[in-house]
Structures are given as structure tokens and as C-alpha cells.
């Protein structure tokens, strides 16, 4: 019993990756959200009838959790859209919370009522991560479309805190809220909460009314931000939140483990020991991708999981990236390349410029 949690997660992840055990599952319960952030990669409106009709039922999600659990899923993320928009969230989570997973929930926190908070307090997930889009009604409104969201999110945070639920705050960095980064860090510290930020914004994954490219930071600004985290957050460096799949092993450069010769484009856990299940029922390697996809609700989880392995193995490695002198500083990965360029193996101008800027900044600071 001497192993620490981190050590245990690392051991399990390493072994699961090797043996292709689906250790980490991510269930995107809905694509709908009560906010309308323009940088979101999947966002339908809260009352979108068509989207509602294509969502999978509570029963189906519960069954999926059961099947994935039997196949070895230990870590489970419930996310959206906004999960608390689902009328049957309690039915889903109530069952899942008894199945023996280490469960996380992502939410914007604005739909948390005293009743929901106390219900969650009686069966808390391991952690709830709340996204904050600004530190004033004005900024929050500019980024998410609704100024009232600010007070509601703060209320949600305090309600969940009062239940003793383990919370983490995250900020998605965009042009409209970058000036609030220090205030955000102060707020997290005042509340005694861990915090992190999402630094890479992907072009949208599927057709919806967002245009992330117009909202995200320019490569120049982002590279500068990365260089000066202490200045922008005022004090300690926050954790970076790439996403759940990578979050468990982000300390080292991801490329340390990447074997280019193996013809495997994924250096992360995607499709090896982690999977994403989209709101309409596709099994994909990660949140950014809606293809390659397998179909667990039609064919069963195990079949879909092995189909996904086969599909992932046919994804090409980007030859230019694998030989690129900037690889160590670059944020390239198959999903990002695909969303940026439409191809898995085509360098993305945004990422190339970012890598050049990061490299230049590090060189100027003589860290290289």
C-alpha cells in the first residue's frame, strides 16, 4: 500500500498503454451548452431539439460505463457541452458513481443549485473542474455571450466548495480574457483552489456556430504568455490543462516517449489507453477528433475499442513534423494537425509559427 496516487496512476497508465487497456474514458454526455463561447470546439444551443434527439440515453451511457469498466476503465471524465443541462444527469451519475471509477466532471458551474450541490456532496466525484471565462461580468459576457454567467459561476463554485467537493478552476485563454489572468489566479488562491489554464484552442470539431480561430491568441501572444507565466498569473505557476488524457503525465516533454520510427503518430494515450465517446455515440481517440470513429452503442464497447485501435494505426505520421528541428518546442499532434489543416500529416501554420516563437523566446532567454 506504499505506492502514492501519482505513482500508481503512472504505473497503470504505462501498463495500460502497452496492453491497450481502456483505462481512461471520457464521456461527452451532450453537445449542448447554456453558454455560447465562441472558442468552443463543440457547442449546440441548450434547447436544440435536433441535438437533443441525437443524444444517447441515460441507460446507454450507464451500459457503456459498465462495459468499459469491465474492460478496465478506471478513470472517467463526464463532460459536455454542459453536463448539468441534461435532465437525466442524476440518473447517469447516480449509477456511475457506484461502479468503482475515479470520476471527474467538467462544468461551467452556472447551473449548480444548492440542491444539486448537496446531492453531489453525498456522492462526490473525485474532482469537479470548473471553467471560468472571465473575472468580471463584462469579460465573462464577452467571451461566453452571457454576463449573468459570471455571478452564477461564482455561486456554483461556492456552493460546491461548501459541500467539501474537491474543485479545480480552469481558465481558457482567449483574446477576450487574457487581461484577467492575474485576477483569476488571485481568485483561485483566495478560495484555496488549484487552478490551471487551457492554452491551446483548436478549430472547431464539428459544425456549430463558433469560430475559435478568431478568438484564440495569436502565436506571438501565446508564446509570450507561456514565457512569462509568473508575470501573467502573478505568482506560482499553475498547472496546465491540456486535457484529461494527457493530464496524467504532462511533466516531461511528450516527445520523450514518442518513437517516430514506430509509425505511430500518437505520443499521447489517445486510442492506446484512453478514449472519447462523443455525445452522439462515436468512439474516437480524443476530444478533438470525430474521426476515426467506432460505434460502441451499436457494436458493443469491446468491439468498438478494438476497431478504434485498428483505425488509429492507419493514421499517417506527419513526415515534416517528425524531422522538424522545432519538434521539441512544438505542440503538434495528429488531432491538432487534422483540425488545423484537414490532414493528419500536414504541418499547421499556427503551430509552426507558435513553435518558432517559443523557440525564439527561449533562445533569447538563453534557455536553449
Amino acid at each position: 500500500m506504499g505506492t502514492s496516487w501519482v505513482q500508481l496512476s503512472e504505473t497503470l497508465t504505462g501498463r495500460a498503454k502497452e496492453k491497450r487497456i481502456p483505462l481512461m474514458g471520457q464521456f461527452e454526455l451532450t453537445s449542448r451548452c447554456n453558454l455560447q463561447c465562441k472558442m468552443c470546439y463543440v457547442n449546440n444551443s441548450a434547447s436544440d431539439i435536433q441535438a437533443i434527439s441525437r443524444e444517447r440515453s441515460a441507460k446507454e451511457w450507464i451500459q457503456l460505463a459498465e462495459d468499459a469498466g469491465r474492460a478496465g476503465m478506471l478513470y472517467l471524465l463526464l463532460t459536455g457541452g454542459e453536463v448539468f443541462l441534461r435532465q437525466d444527469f442524476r440518473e447517469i451519475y447516480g449509477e456511475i458513481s457506484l461502479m468503482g471509477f475515479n470520476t471527474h466532471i467538467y462544468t461551467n458551474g452556472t447551473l449548480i443549485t444548492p440542491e444539486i450541490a448537496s446531492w453531489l456532496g453525498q456522492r462526490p466525484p473525485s474532482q469537479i473542474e470548473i471553467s471560468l471565462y472571465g473575472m468580471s461580468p463584462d469579460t465573462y459576457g464577452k467571451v461566453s455571450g452571457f454576463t449573468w454567467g459570471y455571478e452564477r459561476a461564482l455561486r456554483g463554485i461556492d456552493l460546491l466548495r461548501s459541500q467539501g467537493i474537491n474543485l479545480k478552476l480552469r481558465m481558457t485563454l482567449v483574446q477576450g480574457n487574457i487581461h484577467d489572468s492575474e485576477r483569476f489566479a488571485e481568485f483561485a488562491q483566495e478560495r484555496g483552489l488549484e487552478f490551471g489554464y487551457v492554452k491551446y484552442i483548436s478549430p472547431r470539431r464539428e459544425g456549430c456556430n463558433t469560430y475559435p480561430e478568431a478568438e484564440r491568441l495569436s502565436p506571438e501572444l501565446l508564446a509570450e504568455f507561456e514565457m512569462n507565466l509568473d508575470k501573467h498569473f502573478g505568482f506560482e505557476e499553475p498547472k496546465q490543462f491540456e486535457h484529461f488524457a494527457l493530464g496524467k503525465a504532462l511533466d516531461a516533454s511528450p516527445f520523450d516517449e514518442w518513437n517516430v520510427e514506430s509509425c505511430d503518430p500518437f505520443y499521447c494515450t489517445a486510442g492506446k489507453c484512453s478514449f472519447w465517446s462523443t455525445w452522439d455515440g462515436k468512439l474516437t481517440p480524443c476530444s478533438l477528433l470525430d474521426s476515426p470513429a467506432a460505434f460502441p452503442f451499436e457494436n458493443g464497447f469491446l468491439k468498438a475499442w478494438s476497431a478504434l485501435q485498428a483505425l488509429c494505426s492507419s493514421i499517417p505520421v506527419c513526415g515534416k513534423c517528425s524531422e522538424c528541428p522545432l519538434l521539441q518546442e512544438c505542440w503538434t499532434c495528429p488531432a491538432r494537425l487534422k483540425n488545423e489543416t484537414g490532414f493528419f500529416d500536414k504541418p499547421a501554420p499556427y503551430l509552426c509559427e507558435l513553435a518558432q516563437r517559443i523557440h525564439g523566446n527561449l533562445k533569447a532567454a538563453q534557455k536553449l
Partner: protein
Amino acid sequence: MKIKEGFMLREIADSWVVVPVGKRVVEFNGLISLSESGALLWQKLENGAAEEDLLKSMLHEYEIEEDAALADIRDFIRTLDEKGLFE
């Protein structure tokens, strides 16, 4: 001795892991990793077992000296006790 309700022992990727479920996460938010013999003892303790039952199972399952087995069992029980895992 009996382990509290609300813990699930799972075998994942050749490891034994105990996960708190439902309400239990309030007081224990984390995972416990067990060795194979730890998992054996845990399974016995889930249903309630005395030291001699545990010893019997250990001796039955493993080629181990009685003294060493007993020391391991006491160690294991102490750790569980310190973590407040017994009823």
C-alpha cells in the same frame, strides 16, 4: 475485523486497486494500490475476518513462513486501521 462498506476492489492492468464509491469519497478521495497478497487479505476482510482466518488463507495461498505471514498481516491491518478503513 471488517472493512467499511463503500470500497470496491478492482483488478486493472494486472494491478489491484481499491476505489471508494458513492458516499465514501467524502472521507476517502483517492485510490489504494494493493499487492496480490494484500488483495487476498482485503477480500477476506470485506466479509469480516479474524487474524487466524487471514493467516490460514495466507498459508494456504503462499509458500511462506508462519512468522513472516503473521508479520505481514499485522502490518497490513495496522495500515488499514490508520487509514480508518475498518467498521
